[in-house]
């Protein structure tokens, strides 16, 4: 087991190296000159000295490999650069907004699992009935509806039908936990709809697959009540597959976070990324992209490892 973990963690390193190379290359591909973009809105525009100073500050007078080495060195020391706009360290800005993302993501996944597993199980147990057909159609429809449309309509419904609906505000959890939760419930629920349909489908498929296996026949023939067979035996074995699909869906969730934060005006990393794109604040764009990609691969690895712990067959 320890060897398995070591191998998997080590396999992450070349990927992260490649990710950093790609993000750096994107920055280098920005059309036009970064200094021109930065100086564009500045009073010092046209001031050659200021431009030269800036170039030196940004290491633009050095070659690309040198710049990459310096940039990567900074990353490894936790220095993601400084924002062009606010002048603050990028990592600090990201970490300041991280709690919003963590809360949204956690609530969304929790809601999706709490709803998805029972619904999926129901669909499997009632296979080929109207209930099953309805649930299956609902899940196909669910992942065909754009989440940012649902979010937009939720905001619209809020303003039209329920003027007091607690949306489009944000209070930090540390400030007022109860108010924070009431404000986060609706955005989290909308976000959970991005992953719910696949969790339902996966649970259904996995339960059906397990129901066919020999151990179910054994459990039934030794006289266990059906309820116990389903909940204690089948569901427990199906959950590994559900765990897996949840891991894969983290990517969808991260994409969804960006849109959810934009629509519900929540101060998370997604909004930070969008704001910095509008202001062409490249250190923040690259920093946030790198941060989210790293978080994504790390979570995926954690899910894989958890899978290995729960299911010894995976370890090989």
């Amino acid at each position, binding site marked *: 087991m320890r060897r398995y973990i070591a191998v998997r963690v080590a396999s992450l390193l070349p990927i*992260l190296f490649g990710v950093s190379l790609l993000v750096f290359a994107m920055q280098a591909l920005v059309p036009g000159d970064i200094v021109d973009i930065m100086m564009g809105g500045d009073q010092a525009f046209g001031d050659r000295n200021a431009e030269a100073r800036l170039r030196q500050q940004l290491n633009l007078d050095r070659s690309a490999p040198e710049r990459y080495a310096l940039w990567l060195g900074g990353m490894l020391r936790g220095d993601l650069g400084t924002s062009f706009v606010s002048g603050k360290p990028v990592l600090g800005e990201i970490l300041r907004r991280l709690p919003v993302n963590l809360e949204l993501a956690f609530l969304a996944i929790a809601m999706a699992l709490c709803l998805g597993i029972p619904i999926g199980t129901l669909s499997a147990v009632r296979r080929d009935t109207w209930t099953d057909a309805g649930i299956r159609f609902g899940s196909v429809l669910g992942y065909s509806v754009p989440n940012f449309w649902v979010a*937009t309509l939720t905001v619209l419904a809020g303003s039209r039908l329920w003027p007091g609906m607690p949306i489009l505000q944000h209070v930090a959890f540390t400030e007022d936990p109860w108010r924070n939760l009431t404000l986060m419930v609706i955005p989290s629920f909308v976000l959970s709809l991005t992953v719910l349909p696949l969790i339902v489908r996966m649970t259904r498929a996995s339960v059906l697959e397990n129901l066919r296996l020999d151990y179910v026949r054994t459990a039934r023939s030794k006289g266990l009540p059906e309820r116990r067979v389903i909940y204690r035996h089948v569901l427990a074995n199906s959950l590994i597959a559900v765990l897996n699909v949840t891991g894969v869906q983290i990517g*969808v969730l991260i994409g969804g976070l960006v849109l959810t934060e934009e629509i519900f005006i929540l101060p998370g990393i997604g909004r930070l990324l969008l704001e910095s794109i509008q202001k062409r604040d490249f250190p923040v764009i690259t920093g946030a992209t790198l941060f989210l990609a790293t978080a994504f691969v790390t979570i995926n690895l954690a899910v894989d490892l958890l899978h290995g712990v729960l299911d010894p067959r995976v370890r090989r």
Partner: protein
Amino acid sequence: MASSTPGSVADPVAATAALAGTPGPARPWGGRRISRQIWRRKTAAVGLALATVVLVGAVLAPWLSPADPVAMTAQRFATPSAQAWLGTDQFGRDLLSRLLHGARVSMLVSFAAVGLAALIGGTVGLCAGYFEGRVDLLLMRGVDVLMAFPTLLLALAVVATLGGSLRNLILAITLAYIPIFSRVVRGSTLSVKQSEFVDASRALGARDGRIMLRAILPNVLAPVIVQATFNLSTAIMIEAALSFLGLGVQPPAASWGSMLSEARNFMELDPWLAVAPGGAITMAVLGFNLFGDGLRDVLDPRLAGER
């Protein structure tokens, strides 16, 4: 990086990869049999119908549109009438015409991006699976790096650096989809390569290129087609999301995502403006999803039992 569960309905990559097991030098599917079987599945037929409506609307938009999609009139926020079937928007532009031209952008971007990604990713996967060894290692490491980004994030990063335009949208989505096709084709190639007809072809003196194109490629096409259908639907979604964020086709050109985004400012006045473009996106995505489901059921008998 992302782990996949073999046999899961939710994982088209794994599900379609299994198709590669279908051996035989001939095409593993016959067009007529498939169309009959798909037709038999009502949901797939509904999906095909929806997708066709969107496609026809997109292709014929210049001729079907009752008005110029960017021409402003004094008739602002008009309700549906005989002149403007779906009403007009905040600038008095005809909503139906804008939806049709939005379909054009959506279809152009998704088909171009998925086609390019299938071409590039397929080539990468074919080479990686056929040559194995160092080539495989190198190519798949590159693919792993692209896989390390959530799809929307990668596309977002590309348009953020290069700027929003039709070409960059296609480029962004292509880049995000290359890894999926590489993996599908590589997996299929690895197993098709074991077939006797590949050995036979080699024994007859065929070169690598010929074996890859004539013996292996026809046998890995089925999973690619299924994967492409699903990716069309997600590409529609990504295009709409990027345009919604203002990073897609620039105004006044119509795109479903930007129409929805603009409507947010006026939706208390006229909710219909926010409802219509979202409905169009849903219709298109649902169409390709349902069709893809049917296609996979037909092309992958292994999963048929789970229906």
